[in-house]
C-alpha cells in the first residue's frame, strides 16, 4: 500500500492546516487580497479549508487606486461568485486623513503608502491576524519569515526576535493591541503556484496571459502606459506582446515580453526563465535590502 501525496497535495494540506489554525486561534482574522495569483490561490485554499461552510473571515483589499482595471473586475466577480465578504481600504482615504503622503517625482508610487493604509485598517477593524500570500522563495528577507509572524503594537517585525516555530504547532498568543501576520503559502514556490492553478483550474485575471499593450521601458522595467505615469521625454510607448508575472500597482509592476497565452505555456516559460518574478518590480530594486526595510515597517 502506498500512502503518499504529491508535492502539491502536501503543500495544499499544510496551507489548509494553517488557515484552519488561524480561524481557531484568532477572533478577527482577515485575508489580505491583492488580486494577484498568490492571494487568489490563498483564498481558494481557504474555501477548501472550511468547505462546505463559507470562509469564516473577510477579504481585505488595500486599494492604491492605481490598480489595473482587470484586477478590480476580477476581484468583484470572484467576490460575487463565492459570496465572500470584501473590505476595501483606500490609500486615498489614508492620504486624505493625513496618515499617508503621496510620493513626488516620476517614479512616485503608492506602494509604500499601502503600509499606513493597511495598519489603519487593521486598527479600525480590530483585526488580530492578517493573512498574506507571501512566499519564502520570493526574496531573501522572506526566507526567514515564520508562518505565524508576531507584530508588536507598532506592527513592527523584528527579524532577530521571532518566536521559534516547531513542528506544526503554531503559537498565536498575544497581548492586546498586538497582531499576527500569517503566511499560509510560505512553502510554495512560483512554480508550485502555477502548477496548482493549472491542476485545479483556478481562474486568474487576464493580465497574467500574453496580450497586446502599450508599454515603455524605465530603469530596466517594462511598464504599462497608463494615466498614473508621465512619460519622460526620451520614453516612448509602443504596442508589444507582453504579460505580467506579478500584479501590483500600474505604476511599478513590470511586464515581460511573452507569447504565453495559456497556463501550460506560462509554466514552460517559468521553467526556463532566468529571473525571479520580483525582478520586474522596480520597488525592490531601490536597494538590495529594500524588502527587508519594508517588512520591518509592516509591509505585507
Amino acid at each position, binding site marked *: 500500500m502506498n500512502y503518499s501525496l504529491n508535492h502539491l497535495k502536501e503543500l*495544499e494540506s499544510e496551507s489548509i492546516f494553517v488557515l484552519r489554525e488561524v480561524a481557531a486561534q484568532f477572533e478577527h482574522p482577515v485575508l489580505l487580497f491583492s488580486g494577484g495569483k498568490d492571494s487568489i490561490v490563498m483564498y481558494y485554499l481557504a474555501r477548501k479549508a472550511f468547505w*462546505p*461552510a463559507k470562509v469564516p473571515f473577510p477579504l481585505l483589499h488595500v486599494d492604491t487606486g492605481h490598480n489595473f482595471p482587470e484586477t478590480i473586475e476580477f476581484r468583484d466577480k470572484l467576490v460575487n461568485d463565492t459570496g465572500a465578504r470584501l473590505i476595501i481600504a483606500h490609500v486615498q482615504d489614508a492620504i486624505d486623513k493625513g496618515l499617508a503622503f503621496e510620493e513626488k517625482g516620476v517614479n512616485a508610487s503608492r506602494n509604500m503608502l499601502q503600509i499606513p493604509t493597511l495598519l489603519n485598517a487593521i486598527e479600525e477593524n480590530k483585526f488580530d491576524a492578517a493573512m498574506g500570500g507571501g512566499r519564502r*522563495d520570493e526574496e531573501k528577507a522572506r526566507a526567514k519569515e515564520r508562518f505565524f509572524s508576531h507584530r508588536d503594537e507598532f506592527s513592527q517585525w523584528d527579524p532577530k526576535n521571532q518566536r521559534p516555530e*516547531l513542528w506544526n*504547532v503554531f*503559537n498565536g498568543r498575544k*497581548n492586546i493591541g498586538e497582531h499576527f501576520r500569517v503566511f499560509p503559502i510560505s512553502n510554495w514556490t512560483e512554480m508550485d503556484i502555477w502548477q496548482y492553478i493549472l491542476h485545479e483550474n483556478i481562474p486568474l485575471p487576464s493580465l497574467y496571459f500574453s496580450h497586446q499593450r502599450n508599454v515603455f521601458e524605465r530603469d530596466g522595467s517594462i511598464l504599462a502606459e497608463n494615466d498614473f505615469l508621465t512619460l519622460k521625454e526620451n520614453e516612448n510607448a509602443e504596442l508589444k506582446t507582453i504579460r505580467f508575472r506579478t500584479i501590483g500597482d500600474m505604476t511599478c509592476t513590470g511586464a515581460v515580453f511573452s507569447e504565453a497565452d495559456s497556463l501550460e505555456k506560462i509554466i514552460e516559460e517559468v521553467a526556463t526563465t532566468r529571473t525571479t518574478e520580483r525582478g520586474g518590480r522596480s520597488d525592490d530594486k531601490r536597494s538590495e535590502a529594500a524588502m527587508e526595510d519594508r517588512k520591518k515597517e509592516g509591509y505585507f
Partner: protein
Amino acid sequence: MSKESKGYLDMDLLRFTTAGSVDDGKSTLIGRMLYDSKSIFEDQMEAVERASAKAGDNEVNLALLTDGLRAEREQGITIDVAYRYFATPKRKFIIADTPGHIQYTRNMVTGASTANLAIILVDARNGVVEQTKRHSFIASLLGIPHVVYCINKMDLVDYSEEAYNKVRDEIEAFGSKLQINDVHFIPVSALKGDNIVHKSENMDWYQGATLMYTLENVHISSDNNFVDCRFPVQYVVRPLTEAHHDYRGYAGRVAGGVFKEGDEVSLLPSGFKTSIKSIDTMDGKIEKAYPPMSVCLTLNDDLDLSRGDMIVKENNQPDALQDLDVMVCWMNEKPLVPNGKYAIKHTSRDARCMVKNVLYKVDINTLHRIEGDTNIGMNDIGKISIRTTKPLFVDRYSRNRISGSLILINEATNETVAAGMIV
C-alpha cells in the same frame, strides 16, 4: 497537454535541514546544489556578484546565495533558520538552513522539527568535532529518519580514501549510541562540486551515490505513522446554510493511521463510540485519509466534540496523561523555572502545566546525563517531568512526531520557550 508538463504530478516533497560547524562549507554546499541544479535566477546571481565585488572577493562567492538578512551580511554570519527551495523533476525540496554556532542549538532544533532528512557536514581535515556530535544528537533526538554525512573539502586531503574512511569510522563509532534509522556517507567537495550533483572524477574509489541522487531517491513515503489512528480535531465546520443545515464536520490534519469511511472510532476525552460517515473535501468525498492530509470528517452520531479533542480507534489509543516526562530543548533567554507554570500546546489542545522536576540535563557534546543539574537555560536540553491541568492524548515521540511533541509558552510574554518531546 503534453506528458512532460504533467510530470509534476508525480513529484513528492522532501524537507531537509543542513548542519555543520562554521566554515565547514554549508553555505557553499547549498549554493552549489542550487547552482548545479539550475535553481538560481540571473538577478539573484547578479545580486550575489555585486555583493561579492563589494566585499572584495575575486570569485563569485556561492555562499552568498544563501545569506539572508542585512544584520547577518554585516556580521558575515547566518543567525536564524532560513528556508530555501529548489526542485528537480523528481522532487521538490525545502531546505531549513540553520547555523552551526554553539549558541544556536535552538535554531537547529527548529529546522529539524519538520525535516525528513538532515545533512551534516564534516570537514575532512578535522574529522568529528564537538559540533558533529551535537548535530547528530539533535537529529536523533528530533527523530529525523534519514541522515547524510557529507565529508567535505575532500579536495584539501587529495581526495584520499583513507582520510574519508577515517572520518567515517569516527562517526560510526559514536553514532552507534544514537537512534537514526538510515545513515549515509558521501565524500564531497562543495567548492569544486565533487559528488554534489555530478559524480566526482577525482574519487574512483567511491562507488556510492552523489548527494543529489541520494536526496532524490531516499525513501520517504514511510516516514509518517500509518498505523496508529490519530485525528486531532482542529476546527468544527458548521455551515448553518439551507443546503447543509445539520452539517457538523470535524476539520483536521491526520496525525497518524489511516481513516476510512465506515470505520468504528472512539472519541477522546469522552470515550464515546461512533463511526465515520464521510470524509469530505471540497473536491468531493474521499475513501481514505492518512497523514499528512487535511480533511473534514463527519460522524454517524451527533456527539459533542470540539477543538482539542481527538478521534482514534478503540483498540489503539494514545495515553491520556496528566503526568508526563518530556525531553525539552530550551529556547528562551529566561531559563526554565523549577516549579514554574507554563502554557502548553499539544496538537490542537491547549493546557497549562507545572514543572515538577528536572530529571537531568544532557551534555550535548558527550551525550552524557548530568544528574542533579536543574539549570535549564537557552540552548540546553534536559529531561523534565510536568503535570498538566487536563489530560493530553499522547504517543511517544519516537512513535509519532505529531502526537509526541509539544511546546511550552511563557504565560507572561507569550513567547515559545521550549520544544518538548514526550518520552
